[in-house]
């Protein structure tokens, strides 16, 4: 019997010929990434007398949740991290290049078949490039930084076979919201996902990243796509290593295989307060919005901004609504500027924030007051995630966010947009 992508990575990382789902291994970690949480790791390691990391060259550090610093306390945290980077001799300090996950991919730190652990739950994003990647907390990260390894259970794998013909108005976000609603946010709990099928093959890397990113919202440990020619082409100019295609063995064993036909899919919206509370946009009813947010590691890439710009071109954001746009990285910001999207957003009355996590985690900026409603292209609508516990957070695709910003209420993007990013 062959191995799944998860089994292949964990077999190699634990120095074994083969491993099987359910088995516990001690895995050598290829890349460790930490954002602002690194400050806490640094303090912990120093307290334990660790003055040398296991392998500083495997470590990537970035500031994204609170850049630029909103408080003196955060500024102190950033200062401490810069000192720690210096002290530990970490060369891969990405500064303030944008959201960690976007910057990791753009910087060529994500390669197919690698095991990557990071202090952020949306680390599953790298599965879009065929990497086994998962979020961990600061204690485990401190351990990994010092030792280079961590215990892991080899997860069973479920497959989502994405089939059918994409209809206008649909983005990959709609597919993952649909899966969360239809199959539940626990469908992949303690498991790995492999997204397969014609639709998955045709998808851009950006679209794949949205699905892998929200793999964690389905409970997943890893959320893979096969690394194909598209992946290799993207990586070639970003790394000095030679990335190769990576997929499961043909006779790998899966726990379950689900077929998802997207032919009749409508744009989807998650309603408060869970990403699994999903409805087609037509069933939302009349729902005014105070804020619309376009950005995050889920949907702040150039492809997402391009769709929003197409929709907003020559139109105005509703006076009762504020539209915040946070490009996922400095590179996305630059590309969006060159493509004219930034001008389109500003002409429409949107506000552009610095690249980074922006309002999504609810600490830096763009927070919601009590009883305010936001339609957001992000990944979680937990109660109080983006501000007041009495605020209401709806999740949708970048197209749905842009359309809703124009009308001031949650709106079917097909009113303004008859294309799809999936064809």
């Amino acid at each position, binding site marked *: 019997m062959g191995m799944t992508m998860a089994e292949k990575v964990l077999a190699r990382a634990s120095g074994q010929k083969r491993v099987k789902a359910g088995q*516990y291994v001690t895995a050598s970690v290829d890349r460790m990434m930490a954002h602002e949480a690194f400050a806490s790791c640094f303090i*912990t390691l120093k307290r*334990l*007398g*660790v003055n040398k990391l296991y392998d500083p060259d495997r470590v990537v550090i970035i500031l994204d949740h609170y850049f630029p610093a909103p*408080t003196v*306390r*955060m500024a102190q945290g950033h200062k401490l991290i810069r000192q720690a980077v210096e002290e530990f001799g970490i060369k891969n300090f990405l500064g303030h290049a944008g959201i960690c996950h976007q910057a990791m991919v753009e910087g060529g730190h994500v390669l197919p078949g690698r095991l990557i652990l990071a*202090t*952020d*739950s949306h*680390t599953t994003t790298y599965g879009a490039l065929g990497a086994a990647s*998962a*979020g*961990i*907390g*600061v*204690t*485990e990260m*401190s*351990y990994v930084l*010092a*030792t280079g390894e961590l*215990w892991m259970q080899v997860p069973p794998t479920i497959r989502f076979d994405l089939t059918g013909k994409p209809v206008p108005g649909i983005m990959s976000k709609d597919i993952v919201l649909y899966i969360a609603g239809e199959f539940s*946010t*626990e469908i992949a*709990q*303690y498991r790995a996902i492999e997204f397969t099928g014609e639709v998955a093959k045709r998808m851009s890397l950006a679209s794949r990243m949205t699905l892998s990113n929200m793999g*964690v919202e389905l*409970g997943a*440990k890893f959320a893979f796509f096969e690394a194909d020619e598209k992946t290799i082409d993207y990586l070639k100019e970003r790394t000095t290593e030679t990335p190769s295609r990576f997929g499961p063995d043909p006779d790998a064993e899966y726990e379950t295989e689900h077929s998802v036909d997207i032919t009749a899919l409508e744009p989807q919206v998650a309603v408060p307060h*869970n990403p*699994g509370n999903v409805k087609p946009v037509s069933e939302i009813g009349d729902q005014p919005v105070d804020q619309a947010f376009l950005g995050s590691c889920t949907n702040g890439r150039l492809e997402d901004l391009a769709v929003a710009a197409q929709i907003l071109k020559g139109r105005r954001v509703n006076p009762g609504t504020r539209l915040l746009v946070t490009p996922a990285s400095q590179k996305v910001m630059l590309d969006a500027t060159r493509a004219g999207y930034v001008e389109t957003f500003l002409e429409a009355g949107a506000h552009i924030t610095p690249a980074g996590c922006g309002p999504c*985690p*609810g*600490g830096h900026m763009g*927070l919601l007051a009590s009883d305010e409603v936001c339609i957001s292209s992000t990944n*979680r609508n*937990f*109660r*109080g*995630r983006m*501000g007041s*516990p009495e605020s209401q957070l709806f999740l949708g695709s970048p197209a749905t966010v842009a359309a809703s910003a124009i009308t001031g209420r949650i709106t079917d993007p097909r009113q303004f947009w008859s294309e799809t990013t999936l064809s």
Partner: protein
Amino acid sequence: MDMLIKGRVWKFGHNVDTDVMAPWNSLTEPWEERRKVILHIRPEFAQEAKPGDIIVAGRNWGCGSSRENAPENLKNLGIGAVVAETYGRIYFRNSVAIAFPNIVCPGVHEAFEEGDEMELDLKTARVRNLTRDIEISGQPYTSEMLNILEKGGLLNVLKERLSNEVGG
């Protein structure tokens, strides 16, 4: 660490996420402020929870973020253990790493009402409802997880490993 835990039960539902256990904008607050909003979906919880109390929860307890503050807040509040049907995996790992007992136990949500007395054996994952005289079995920790727990957390395991490396 005491492997036999006894306490009064607080009962929560399904999909209770990390963000309500540790709201992001509370993370930089001093403990006295931060503790007030722990599990704010039930405001009386943070007010009235007593050291040694046990949380019984439904499915997907701790879904969401990798913030270790979620289990850490509960531990610092003095909660003795959580017993849930299923867990968000990162929360679960974090709870092991900081040596805060969390047991997977299908059927626990049915078997307990708020205020019941629980006796929990961490070694065997045997869960007893002393109020209703019901006994159910959870999933025992693996020996590796139990080792981390018994040593008081992953950092103590690391400390031991580092001193062995220096000594050896």
